């Protein structure tokens, strides 16, 4: 407990306090609710040399904020310490270990190469120096000798510049290092764990390596060899594979060195274990909501024969709003009084919003669907009879917790934590009963069918609404989340002290 400055150093990547979003809101909530702990924030931004304005008012227990850019810019020609041939060779050996599936050799490597920021070769030495060049060349010659060397080399540079910069970054002193993703942030947390011998905590909301892999698959800036060489070492998408492999290995390194690995629902925990996390270190701490504002909402009853369907969320492709609109069209055939509201901002992807509007027009249901834009969602929960989620990817969506707290029955695609949220995770949880119906992805018929069955059965709605409230009260309260993290932090501080 003698660490000066901070109890907890949060290591964050592209999020709080500079970017708004679900994870940022979660961090803001957590830090604000633990005023007795002092937090330092080490934030990793994409680009070097940019200044960012915090988008949140930092709680008073945030004692320091450091922002480090990892891509872009050049390195000043500063020479660091020279290393023995054996130390350079240890870098080669480390790559061989990683290839063989071992992720625990980072401590030894750091000790020999860069035990503290400012020691060992400088970032400039790493990027421009001949010993690094020899290693890259050897990696290329042994692993991918038939691929474009220019692209191999620059892929190496782009992927490793962040690593070298982060090795030399000054991370605040703290009793516990808490990273809220794997990737670069996870790597920094691992280096702190190894250099300072302080406990390390990982919370992963979405599975980082998978999210990156999806981005990389769609990236157009990564070179794809047009004439694929007919070799085993490299397919045309080799450079995409290199990037994906980098993030996969950063995740494995993070899992290997974290003392506790937390995620927000069971499915993610299983994914982490598949990616190399030790099951004994993993646990699930779901997100939570403050029940009272939602529980106290007055319900407005529908007009006779009316059935009100709600969609709450940003109008973006990942939410698959079009499937929702098609489902509403089908529902109107069976339930004449059905009306729908799409509540959420459309400014993030105006083109998609326009497509959704024109789809509604094409289907002839513009009079049945209201696009509200950005609204206070509490107003929505009090005047809908079912909340529908058609997302193709989710973590643990807050809208489900909020709607459930308001006693609204649910229809959701089977993504992320949604099935757990609707049907229960553990036996006791399951015993509370289902709080909604789970459907397949991108299946308007299935979504419509679920909505219709709720529309035709007021008793089922009543029952599911009740189960929803009970489940949120039992497992998804904000107070529980705070309590769990307070316990985890205390345990780790005690273990590290």
């Amino acid at each position, binding site marked *: 407990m003698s660490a000066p400055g901070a109890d907890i150093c949060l290591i964050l990547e592209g999020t709080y306090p500079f970017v708004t979003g679900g994870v940022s809101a979660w961090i803001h909530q957590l830090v604000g609710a633990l005023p007795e702990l002092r937090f330092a924030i080490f934030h990793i931004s994409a680009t070097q040399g940019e200044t960012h304005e915090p988008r949140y008012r930092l709680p008073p227990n945030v004692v320091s904020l450091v922002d480090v850019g990892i891509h872009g*810019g*050049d390195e000043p020609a500063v020479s660091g310490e020279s290393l023995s041939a054996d130390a350079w060779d240890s870098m080669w050996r480390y790559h061989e270990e990683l290839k063989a599936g071992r992720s625990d050799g980072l401590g030894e490597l750091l000790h020999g190469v860069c035990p503290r920021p400012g020691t060992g070769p400088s970032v400039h030495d790493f990027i421009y120096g*001949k010993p690094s060049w020899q290693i890259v060349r050897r990696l290329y010659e042994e692993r991918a*000798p038939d691929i*474009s*060397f*220019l692209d191999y080399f620059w892929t190496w540079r782009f992927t490793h510049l962040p690593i070298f910069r982060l090795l030399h970054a000054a991370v605040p002193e703290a009793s516990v290092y808490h990273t809220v993703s794997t990737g670069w942030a996870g790597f920094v947390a691992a280096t702190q764990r190894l250099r300072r011998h302080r406990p390390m905590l990982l919370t992963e909301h979405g599975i980082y390596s998978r999210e990156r892999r999806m981005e990389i698959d769609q990236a157009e800036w990564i070179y794809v060899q047009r004439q694929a060489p007919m070799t085993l070492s490299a397919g045309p998408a080799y450079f995409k594979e290199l990037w994906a492999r980098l993030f996969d290995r950063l995740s494995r390194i993070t899992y290997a060195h974290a003392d506790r690995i937390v995620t927000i629902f069971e499915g993610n925990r299983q994914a982490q274990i598949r990616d190399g996390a030790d099951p004994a270190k993993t646990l699930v701490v779901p997100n939570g909501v403050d029940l009272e504002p939602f529980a106290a909402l007055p319900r407005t009853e529908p007009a006779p024969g009316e059935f009100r369907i709600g969609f709450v969320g940003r109008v973006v492709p990942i939410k698959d709003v079009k499937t929702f609109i098609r489902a509403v069209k089908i529902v109107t055939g069976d339930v004449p009084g059905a009306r729908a509201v799409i509540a959420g901002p459309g400014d993030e992807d105006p083109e998609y919003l326009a497509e959704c509007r024109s789809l509604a027009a094409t289907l002839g249901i513009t009079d049945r669907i209201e696009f509200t834009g950005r609204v206070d969602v509490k107003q929505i929960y009090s005047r809908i009879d079912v909340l529908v989620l058609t997302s193709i990817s989710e973590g643990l969506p807050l809208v489900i917790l909020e709607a459930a707290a308001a006693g609204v029955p649910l229809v959701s695609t089977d993504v992320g934590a949604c099935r757990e949220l609707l049907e229960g995770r553990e036996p006791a949880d399951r015993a509370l009963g289902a709080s909604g119906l789970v459907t397949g992805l991108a299946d308007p018929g299935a979504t419509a069918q679920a909505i219709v069955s709720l529309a035709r059965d007021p008793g089922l709605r009543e029952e599911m609404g009740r189960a929803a409230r009970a489940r949120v009260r039992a497992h998804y309260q904000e107070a529980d989340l705070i309590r769990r993290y307070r316990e985890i932090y205390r345990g780790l501080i005690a273990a590290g002290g």
Partner: protein
Amino acid sequence: MAGIGFRLKRLIVDGSYSGWLRAHLYGAVLSAGPWLLSICTLGTLALLSRNLIGDAAHARFQAIVVYTYTVSLITTGAAHMVVTRHLADELYRGRIGALVVSYRLTLGVTALAHLVLGTAFYALCPGLEPALRLFGVMLLVVVSCTWMVMIYLGAAQDYASVVAAFFAGNALSLLAALGLGRYVGGSGYLAGFLAGQAGILFVLCARVEREFTGVRVPESVHLLRAFGRYPELIAAGVFYNAAIAVDRVIFWVGPTGLPVVGWFHASLYDTPIFLCYLSVVPSLAIFLVSVETDFYDRYREYYGVATKHGTLRQVLDAKRALVACLRNSLRRLLIVQAPLTLLSMALAPWLIAAIGLDRLQLGILRCGLVGALLHVLCLFGSIVLLYFDRRRDAAEVAAVFFVANAALTLGTVAVGPRAYGLGYPLAALLACAWAYHRLEQTLEDLEYLTFAAQPMAPEASAIEASSASA
């Protein structure tokens, strides 16, 4: 240099055997032409006019011309390489308009600076008649400006008219000097020479301006930025031009100097050394042609493979071809030049007797012939270094040449007549060794330099820069 290289290649590929010879001729003229032509003119004048204006007047005339060329080469040396690089960069970017501005700026600054320098010098130098002072200042301005205009002729790519201008100009110099010398005396002699050189400058300027007519001038011109970006090129230019003058200067100001008039000196060293320079004209031509054509093809192949997604094995193959081509060029150069130098050394006594030099100058001539051969090899190495953007190495070579030539020439002057002339070949040998040591290292590390030494920031991507210098 890009433009010249393409043009020469076209001459060789498209033309017949006579085209090939023409390419060599242009090559020689472009690399060292103006200087050598002027030496020829001076030599011819010396042979034809000994009895025309009297020995003293002729010595004054010759000293003024030699000083003018020597000084102007050093003073323009600082700008020469940087402006050459600037020109290549802008041509590579297709910004010909920027050259219009930088061309006029370069010319204006050069003229003004040499006007000031010349006026100060000739105002203070004692013992000259007013007309000689006036023409002396004008000659300095004209010759300095000619060096700078030569750079921009790369944009015009019209070598026939350039060569014609030089021959016509020097013929005019010759005739006007003889004519005016006969009727007006020493100052008329200089005025005639000046008229021919000014004619060359005028034709060259007109040729460049014609190239620039109708070109839209962009808002930004990066000439000054080029000076800031390439300090090594400034150093290389100054040191190189100082290196090739310093031995003559030492012979002028030392005990070996023969006072001509005022601050002007001559020495027994001058004439043999000028003859030596003439002996390497064939090398300069071969060198220029092989660098700008054979070598340039391999060079482009190498960078093409490196930048167009080749495998490392392909890059290394291209490098081997490049190195082999360099060796080949060097061998070809030696095959022609070495026998020529040996022949010149053998014929030296006869030559000395024919133009009335003394026995002491025979030793200087023989040393100088070896020196000039090594000098050309050194130049070859330096220019290849510049092709690989090793600006610092090129500056080092020039600095070594300068320091060695100064120190060794001082040493030989101190030792006495038996050692006269040894400084230059020894200095050239040292510079040559340095250049090939650096070149060896560069080629050894070429793939490392090609990839790993490139800056991270994209705007400074030196793969682009090295193509630009090509």
